[in-house]
């Protein structure tokens, strides 16, 4: 293959026909409140782990919903499960359960981070 000094880039488009739904389905089956997220971001604003790192639980949830699991493992491991988000969520999402389900789901489906 010839090198022209540039290459095609992978499309950033999310194709809803081709979403990895394993994790989101597993979470929703066990915690239907997960779908009630409004992306308000209050969980992320109060987050203990977010105060120490770049952890963003709102963004991560969104990425999981879109089947973008490239860095889920690395990210979710930052959560300390302290439960502040649980108290903050305006829609009563069982955030701690969601986190545990993400962790377990990644294990069950053997989803690894992309290096």
């Amino acid at each position, binding site marked *: *293959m*010839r*090198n*022209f*000094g*540039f*290459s*095609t*880039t992978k*499309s950033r488009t999310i194709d809803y026909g081709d979403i990895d739904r394993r994790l989101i389905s597993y979470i929703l089956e066990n915690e239907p409140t997960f779908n009630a997220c409004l992306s308000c971001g209050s969980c992320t604003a109060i987050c203990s782990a977010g105060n120490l790192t770049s952890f963003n639980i709102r963004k991560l949830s969104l990425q999981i919903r879109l089947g973008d699991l490239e860095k889920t493992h690395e990210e979710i491991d930052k959560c300390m499960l302290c439960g502040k988000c649980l108290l903050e969520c305006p829609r009563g999402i069982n955030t701690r359960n969601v986190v545990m389900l993400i962790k377990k789901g990644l294990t069950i489906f053997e989803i690894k981070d992309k290096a």
Partner: protein
Amino acid sequence: MNIEGKKQIWNAYQKEIAENDYFYARSCIRQNFFPASEVAFLRILREELHKNIIDDPNHTTCTGIGYHSDIVPFDTIQTVVARQFSLMTQAGLEHMAISCVTSFGIYTEILDLWHHFPEQLEKIREYLYKATKREFNLPKNIAHTSDVIYKFRNEIAEKAKYKLVNKQTGEPLNVVEHIGCHYAKMFPTKGVGGAEFPQVLVGMIESWGGNVVDYPERRHCCGFGFRNYLVQANRGYSISNTKKKLESMKPYKPDFIVANCPGCAMFMDKWQYTLAEMEGVTYDENGYGIPVLTYEEMAGLVLGYNPWDLGLQMHQVQCESLLDKMGIEYDPKAKYLDKNGNQMPLPEKPSCLKV
């Protein structure tokens, strides 16, 4: 697809195209990469349609590429465009026929600007006068050259020697039409059929017997995008866009692509070669790639012009498969002969794309 609905939209976007007496504005990309297309256009207008069209050697680039690359200031490009108008005025003409879609977009934009800001027009008159002592009238009608062909598509159909039909099966050829972004996306009312469902090429294809393929990325840019190509570091972005388009049209098995913008024709042609070299992919079933024609070349083929006179040998994706389908007779040996019958140097064979 509801054709009635589409026709309703087309009815809402019919523009006035001058009948005769055009001042021809050439295109930088077309004259460099598809010079025979310009020749073909003038021949069709003069010989087939018996129209008066002036091709003034004094006219220059519109500087559109420089303008869209942030090199040429807006006042400068307005002055350059004003000079073209002055050449038109000098020739005693009132109608512009613009070969390039980028230029067409720029002319349209500038005329619209002058309409809304007459003081700007006065300023440009002053600039032009100071620089060249020239004066100018505004054109009464401006049309893209594809608009002109569109206007006379039925006359061309009457004179047609070939149809856009697979001679063996009798089925119409599947044609992907691609409209340059600057043709109607900025001023939908200035394009035939509007911006969402342009009719300009569809009209030609349908009246010459072909079948237009609608595919999801039909409106997507060809990938040129000026700076995205001109800056080498950005070319990956340019080619990725073309790839997206090609991938989207592939399932429809198009027999060829036709574009009204010279840049689009060039990029969809050349990037097929680059993609094949880089990734080993082709977008037809047999590995030859999808031929890309300008509308002038398409009209020329329909009118029975010699494909080598139309410059089809200069394309990256070779057109023999299409010529065979249409049943056009051609001399393979004459492919690389110059106009005096001497052999030209042969192009290097691509490593992936079949020729």
